[in-house]
């Protein structure tokens, strides 16, 4: 009996070892979801946009033991795709998206230290990494960033004899001067309060009035007098006829089109605007300045960052091998030879130090934007309630456009997220 049992155990051990060896020899497949940043994203990852080849082909050639099942998904669909996959217990291995905090409470993500090589981790801008920390754990790494500033049409302002505004009062004067000079044919100021950018609109004015989303301790502080005043101010710009006519439905891209066509004089938008205008064939003489703030307050640029994160997969036969494969993916992606092309292709700003030199060499304007990025404030995306707040402040703004009570709206939102 004992002999039989021993034989059985030996067979099981042999089988398990064979199985392990078999798994070890098999190439590991990583499911990757990448967001579509622009027309070139798909081509770069899956087409011919990377020196006649693509990221997947090059990565698999360099790492024959890893296969990529990579999908480029539009921003409109990505949350739906990811949530559906999570609900079906089929989360991707690697995900590129904007927010991460909603995945942490359910224990879906792996800490970055489990898969990210140390030298790469140390290459990220520390200020960026700090934006992806919950409970002292880093859950995601930044893939790229953009910074917001005031873009203005130099000719339109010069013709109207308008100086670039630095304060809210100056901004109102400048708007009135532009209206008077162009007889209403040019919109002085662009405002986007759509569901895509309402949170940015809130940030521009709240941060420029000493308010914001959170207080000094990082707790939600949405219904402060500064924030109420900030929303009132931007609504007054709309009501005074200083802005585009339909801020709740005119997106950033509509505004950029107006700016391209010389129909809009000033606009708060991302550093990608020059690329956007030249892609559209526009010939606007533009310049940038800081975001105007209220009297006696300091304006702050708004930084927006997207992230890469890795999901847990308890069914993976070899966790160490999987983690190593994810690390190799990141190393290849952030390799300056690949990453510089990726970031500059869509006009974004880098997230790693190693790419800065090459980017500035290729386009000196990157240097100035990197300085702006260093002083940016970011959305509190590490807080679990961020999705609610993002939509909540947009709803308050849109309500205010049709006469809603700003204080009551922000009070309700504060009560909902802060309890």
């Amino acid at each position, binding site marked *: 009996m004992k002999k039989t049992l021993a034989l059985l155990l030996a067979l099981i051990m042999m089988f398990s070892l064979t199985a392990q060896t078999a798994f070890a020899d098999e190439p590991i497949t990583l499911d990757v979801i990448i967001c579509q940043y622009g027309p070139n994203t798909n081509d770069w990852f899956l087409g011919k946009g990377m020196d006649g080849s693509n990221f997947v082909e090059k990565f698999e050639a360099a790492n024959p033991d890893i296969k990529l099942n990579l999908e480029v998904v539009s921003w409109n669909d990505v949350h739906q795709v990811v*949530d559906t996959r999570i609900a079906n217990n089929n989360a991707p291995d690697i995900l590129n998206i904007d927010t991460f905090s909603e995945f942490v409470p359910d224990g879906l993500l792996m800490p970055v230290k489990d898969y990210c090589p140390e030298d790469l981790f140390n290459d990220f801008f520390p200020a960026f990494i700090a934006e992806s920390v919950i409970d002292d754990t880093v859950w995601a790494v930044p893939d790229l960033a953009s910074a917001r500033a005031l873009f203005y049409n130099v000719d339109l302002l010069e013709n109207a004899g308008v100086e670039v505004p630095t304060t809210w009062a100056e901004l109102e004067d400048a708007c009135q001067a532009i209206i008077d000079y162009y007889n209403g044919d040019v919109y002085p100021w662009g405002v986007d309060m759509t569901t895509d950018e309402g949170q940015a609109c809130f940030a521009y004015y709240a941060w420029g009035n000493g308010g914001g989303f959170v207080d000094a301790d990082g707790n939600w502080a949405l219904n402060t007098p500064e924030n109420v005043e900030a929303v009132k101010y931007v609504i007054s710009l709309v009501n005074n006829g200083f802005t585009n006519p339909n801020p709740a*439905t005119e997106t950033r891209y509509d505004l950029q089109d107006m700016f391209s066509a010389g129909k809009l004089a000033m606009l708060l938008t991302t550093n990608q605007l020059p690329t956007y205008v030249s892609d559209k064939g526009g010939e606007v003489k533009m310049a940038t300045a800081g975001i105007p703030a209220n009297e006696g307050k300091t304006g702050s640029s708004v930084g927006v960052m997207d992230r890469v994160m890795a999901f847990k997969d308890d069914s993976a036969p070899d966790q160490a091998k999987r983690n190593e494969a994810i690390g190799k993916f990141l190393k290849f992606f952030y390799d300056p030879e690949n990453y510089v092309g990726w970031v500059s292709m869509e006009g974004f700003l880098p997230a790693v130090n190693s790419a800065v030199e090459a980017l500035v060499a290729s386009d000196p304007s990157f240097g100035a934007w990197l300085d702006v990025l260093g002083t940016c404030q970011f959305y509190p995306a590490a807080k679990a309630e961020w999705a609610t707040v993002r939509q909540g402040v947009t709803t308050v703004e849109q309500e205010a456009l049709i006469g809603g009570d700003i204080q009551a709206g922000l009070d309700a939102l504060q009560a909902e997220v802060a309890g």
Partner: protein
Amino acid sequence: MNSPLNRRWWEPYLWLLPSMLLISVFVIFPIIIVFKLSFSEISKAGVIGGYIGFQNYKDAVNLPAFKTVMLNTFWWVVSVVGSSTLLGFIIALVFNQKFKGRKIARAILVFPWATSLVIQASVWNYIIKYEYGSLNSVLLNLGVIKQAINWRSSYQIEFIWECGVGIFVTVPFVAFCVLSGLQSIDESYYEAATVDGAGFWDKLFKITLPMVRPQLTVSTVLNIIYVFNSFPIVYTMTKGAPAHKTDTMITYLYMLSFYERKKGPATALSVIGFLILCACSGLYMITVMRKEEEQ
């Protein structure tokens, strides 16, 4: 006694089996899942937790935008289905007449229905755009207006535009349903009525309408379901802005689930929508069928 017909009693069920299987997998099973989800706790990321009773329903009904959205949905369905049924019926009457170019006119009528709703809505967005919209361009060039008009100056007007696009894309479906009914009416009915001295309206209400009632019933029930569940027009044109004032239930629950990450109330809303649809379609069909039986 044991006729060949009786021996092959199972045959109809066999033929029905593939479609029954498809309906079970793609319709009934998801409905059961959604019902189950609506009583479950669902995290922001979509992870399904335990049973929480009617909490999701309570949360859904207490949402600030709930009443607005329900009212919008009512007006959306009533205006789009009602107007497109009336217009579709009139167009079908016209297209049933013999005139030169009738075939081309019928082919053109299909376009709004055959084109993707997202494309339709995007095209209408460009037409009514304030700055570069083609409507303003045409009117300015024709000298009808001297200054561009903001065709979307309030959310009420935006909602009317959405309903207008809904009507525009729904009319062809009604027209073709009714046209198929009109073509099956025997000419002798009208000839007999003419001999008896009936006028246009008598023929319309006493012959045409009763004869095309089955087609109208089908198109109305299907339209109630399609229009209620229609997502692309509202989402493409306004995304419910400002502050859900132009949302219908379907676009609202999408925003709730994937933008605000309130997945529990969103699931409850989808069940509420399903029950409303069942009730409306069922009630309408029962009423129409009763009338037919009475007649």
